[in-house]
């Protein structure tokens, strides 16, 4: 079925648009295969609102006399109302939105049709690769190698084609280790610390099962990681009890007797549905400003969102302690090794590694640790906080990562090269995007769908100088030190920029951000050319929330 067949009414005139903290507007509403376009044509300077249909999480329709009202709840938490004259038109529009906002086939999605004139599809896709990371990290050359045993994705369907492994472990052993790990996710190198050469590895759980199976090759692999003499830490992202229970379903943990040089620490992390429900509850709590303070605090507490932030940051801090302070290598895993594992390992890198705190470095980190490492974005981000659809695999772990990064930025406002605006942009793109970056669940799927050949890469686009400057932190001053965040509840805050983005609260913060820029700019003008090679550019318009939505709009 062609996408256009879902559209019974393409255009409606005289539609009223209501959005928070703006006067109502009248104009024309237009539905296309991938967008909802509202344009207010009365003024000379026509104002347009373009929403990707994929951004729509839920719609509610209501009849008022002969006309209808559609409430659109977006995945970026914006809520809009459209008053459409004519019940039939209203129902048609609603059913088009419902059908087109939940397309299943990747190649039907908008990134496959997005063809802006300033971008070309030729040329390399993405910013980094395993090989590049290896090349850049001199510390690895001695004892580590790049293995391409997964080049056809047969050893581990969710891993990239190349992984970094100890030199002394050959590919045959890796294949055996992969068979011993859930989903074939054998321990691979995630990060090598520039100061002491200690590494962070990640994997899925070992399949020890009820009768405590073991796998010699897996043991040898981990032995090779710590190079014999020292001690390593296994950070298991489940409670000890959960890890025990996992044995009943074929999973398990590394037992002390077989992995004698590894010390296992259990840290409980919520996952899947629980985290998704936290997001739903939090967004619900934020959506009603008429609550009493007591009710708000109890809802905030009850959502447990900040508790997840707390756990993620503390476990990441623990990993960093092991690596930086105690000089030991670490293996991180939970069950599948595709969610919390990536969350913890990438946060640990942000805390440890100054290189991952630049715009480029951070995007590379996301690319390696989330996209190539096989976080199932398509499943996890199918729906956001408003959807009434029955939840399947949804889980806002990536949003949780962005929140944690935001918390780090609050505590170290000078240490990150990027600003909150980049985090907000990513929070939006991960759910609905013009770009192919967050499509599919793994490199294998991306390969099969031809994502790299047929879509544009978000990260490359964000790094174009004119775009990048919107996302810079004016106060950035690199530091080589680890930036250990405080994880006391008093130090963690609600990410107002995201969760209260569409309230009046956000507007005053915008003013403050502009003022920060102007102070720094003024300084640079005075200080002269000596310092303009700093991160600051002479011209930067901070985005208002709505321009953000309209960002890189293509004319249809």
């Amino acid at each position, binding site marked *: 079925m062609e996408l256009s067949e879902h559209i019974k009414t393409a255009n409606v005139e005289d539609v009223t648009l209501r959005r928070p903290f703006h006067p109502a507007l009248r104009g024309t509403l237009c539905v296309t295969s991938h967008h909802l376009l509202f344009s207010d044509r009365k003024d000379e300077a026509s104002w347009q609102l373009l929403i990707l249909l994929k951004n729509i999480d839920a719609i509610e329709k209501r009849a008022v006399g002969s006309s209808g009202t559609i409430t659109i709840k977006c995945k970026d938490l914006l809520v809009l109302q459209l008053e459409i004259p004519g019940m039939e038109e209203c129902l048609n529009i609603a059913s088009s939105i419902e059908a087109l906002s939940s397309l299943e086939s990747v190649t039907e999605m908008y990134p496959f049709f997005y063809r802006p004139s300033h971008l070309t599809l030729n040329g390399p896709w993405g910013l980094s690769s395993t090989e590049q990371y290896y090349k850049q990290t001199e510390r690895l050359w001695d004892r580590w190698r790049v293995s391409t045993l997964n080049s056809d994705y047969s050893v581990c369907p969710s891993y990239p084609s190349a992984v970094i492994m100890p030199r002394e472990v050959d590919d045959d052993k890796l294949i055996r280790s992969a068979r011993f790990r859930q989903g074939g996710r054998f321990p691979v190198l995630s990060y090598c610390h520039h100061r002491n050469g200690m590494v962070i590895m990640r994997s899925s759980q070992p399949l020890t099962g009820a009768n405590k199976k073991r796998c010699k090759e897996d043991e040898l692999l981990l032995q090779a990681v710590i190079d014999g003499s020292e001690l390593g830490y296994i950070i298991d992202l489940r409670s000890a009890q959960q890890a025990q229970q996992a044995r009943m379903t074929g999973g398990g943990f590394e037992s002390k007797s077989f992995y004698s040089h590894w010390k296992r620490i259990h840290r409980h992390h919520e996952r899947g549905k629980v985290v998704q429900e936290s997001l739903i509850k939090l967004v619900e*709590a934020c959506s009603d400003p008429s609550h009493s303070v007591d009710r708000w605090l109890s809802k905030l507490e009850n959502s447990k969102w900040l508790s997840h932030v707390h756990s993620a940051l503390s476990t990441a801090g623990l990993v960093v302690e092991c690596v930086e302070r105690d000089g030991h290598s670490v293996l991180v895993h939970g069950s599948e090794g595709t969610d919390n594992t990536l969350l913890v390992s990438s946060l640990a890198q942000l805390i440890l590694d100054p290189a991952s705190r630049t715009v480029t470095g951070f995007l590379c980190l996301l690319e390696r640790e989330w996209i190539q490492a096989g976080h199932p974005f398509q499943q996890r981000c199918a729906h956001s906080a408003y959807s009434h659809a029955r939840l399947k695999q949804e889980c806002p772990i990536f949003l949780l990562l962005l929140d944690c990064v935001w918390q780090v930025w609050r505590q170290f406002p*000078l240490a990150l090269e990027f600003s909150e605006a980049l985090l907000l942009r990513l929070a939006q793109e991960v759910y609905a995007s013009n770009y192919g970056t967050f499509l599919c669940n793994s490199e294998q799927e991306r390969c099969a769908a031809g994502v790299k050949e047929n879509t544009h890469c978000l990260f490359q686009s964000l790094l174009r100088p004119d775009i990048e400057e919107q996302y810079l932190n004016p106060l950035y001053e690199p530091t080589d030190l680890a930036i250990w965040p405080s994880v006391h*509840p*008093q130090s*963690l805050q609600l990410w107002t920029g995201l969760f209260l983005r569409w309230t009046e609260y956000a507007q*005053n913060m915008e003013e403050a951000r502009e003022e920060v820029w102007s102070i720094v700019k003024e300084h640079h003008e005075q200080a002269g050319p000596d310092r303009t090679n700093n991160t600051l550019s002479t011209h930067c318009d901070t985005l208002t929330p709505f321009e953000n939505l309209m960002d890189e709009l293509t004319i249809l």
Partner: protein
Amino acid sequence: MEHIRMPKVEHVRLVDRSSSRRTQVGTLYLTATHTIFVGKGSEDRNDLWVLHSLVCNVVKHKASQSGYPLLIICKNFQVIRFIIPQESDCHDVYISLSRLSRPEKYEELYCFSFNPNVDKAEREHSWDFLDLKAEYSRMGLPNKLWHVNPINREYRVCDTYPADLFVPKSVTLPVIVGSSKFRSRGRFPTLSYYCKENHATICRSSQPLSGFSARCLEDEQMLQAIMKSNPGSRFMYVVDTRPKLNAMANRAAGKGYENEDNYCNIKFQFIGIENIHVMRNSQQKLIEVSALHSPSMGEFLTGLENSDWLRHIKSIMEAGLFISKAVAEEGVSVLVHCSDGWDRTAQVCSVASVLLDPYYRTLKGLMVLIEKDWVSFGHMFSHRCGHLIGEAKEVSPVIDQFLECVWQLMEQFPCAFEYNEKFLISIHIHIYSCHYGNFICNSQKERKDLCIKEKAHSVWLHLWEKKLDFMNPLFKPDQSQNQGLLRPSTAPYCFKYWRRLYNRFDRELHPRQSELDCLMTVKEETQKLEEELALYEQVKCQIFNFHLHKVFLFNFSDHVFSAYTSLANTPQDYIGGAPNVFTLQQGERESAELCLFGDQTKSSDADNSDQESGVADFSSHSSGEESLPSEDSVKDPDSDETGPNRA
């Protein structure tokens, strides 16, 4: 001195609140005014000075292996934990401090012995720094409708009111006297704020003695006159800031609230702000939450919720908003009262003023506002802050709540205030410390009787001189949304926990880098560069100067940013209470920290920077020299506020 049983104890250990492994051994001294702890071997003399008048409570804990713990709990929410080797010493210190921290007479307070080495003229100048007369004339008073009535010059009509009071010109003396007799403690309706633009006013009083049916013609005339002094309006609001139930209960005691039927053209309104006892208990709970040792997120949020503190802050804010909207948007005058008109009334009037008038969002404006609405109108500082030993039930954090409302507004409007949160915290400390004479006693009359102005100094000039520390770099007075009425959101998520106040001394809780300080430095540097440039323009014919100038520019710019990046850092407690694998290696870790960050410490000038910044603090932390909680409580009697570590 007769209260000091034990002037000096050796081998005392000072224990960090958050982590018992950060301790420092040293000598404890008790003086007439301070408790002083001098760490042994600390080269930078990072001593701890605690004013006795800032001490809220002294607690002995059960003996531990290492000695006898003694807790000093301060009114600025600092908790100092000493471990004293000998029980008898501990007991002596405890007895001495218990007495020293509970003065019985005003004369014992520190402000009477504090001598900052200035002459009489300078002291008088410090008191002249703020002039309420000038403030009223800034508002546009006196004018043809309002004037100062001399009736209370001798404090005969109302001994808790100031001598100079603004009332409508049309009001006669008998009306004032009659009205004052019909109001609790004689606190008749009088002007607090006048809005030049539309002539609307905020007036304040205490509750009427109406009982179930009593009336007072003069009081009714008084309100009528206030209403009429706002020619543009046909009615006025009377706002009773108490919960309705409390106000009704007061009727049984012959007090109560205005009956709308008896007064012409008033609209009566209750705004349920709880009384001082509820607020005291609420803050106590909040302090307990803030002091929890590594609570879970759930425990913290539940504790915050159960304290009800933010609910109370919201109710005060909403009251202020109601009044400010009535004045600015409706142009209607408001009479505010509670029971006695010196607690909730002061809070609400001053919050409304901050919302209404951008002047109160400037440094000097906030000082004036506190001087006017709180000090002059007889907020009972001595009782509420517990300056003297007395009725514990009179203590209540009423002014804390006002300062917090201002802080909450600053969080919502980051560009609307000239001052930053350090200013609020400094004011908070000075209110409690009795270091200066401003907040001593319960009324203007008492202060006059005690000759405070002759014997003590005023804090306002002192704060003004330190104003560079208190500036908000984001302040944009010319921005349209920062002029006129502020319209804060009172959505529940806009009320936040004030970490800087309640956890001020728990350094590891605060951001490691200060955006504010960085921006302030950048701004200062820009200004200096501008000046340099102007100078350069003047002399640019001289090539020699040109050369110098370039050199200067270059060095200075490099310096600014680097000052804020010397964040030495330590890991947090990521383990929580769970048994962990690291405990054995702590010794190693401390030493690792030392070599890692030792160099950093030297480069950052910890001595010069404000303790508040967090950056400099932190470098001293990780240098291994245990940095002591030594903020404004650190006071050297000879050099004003400059503690030995700051000199």
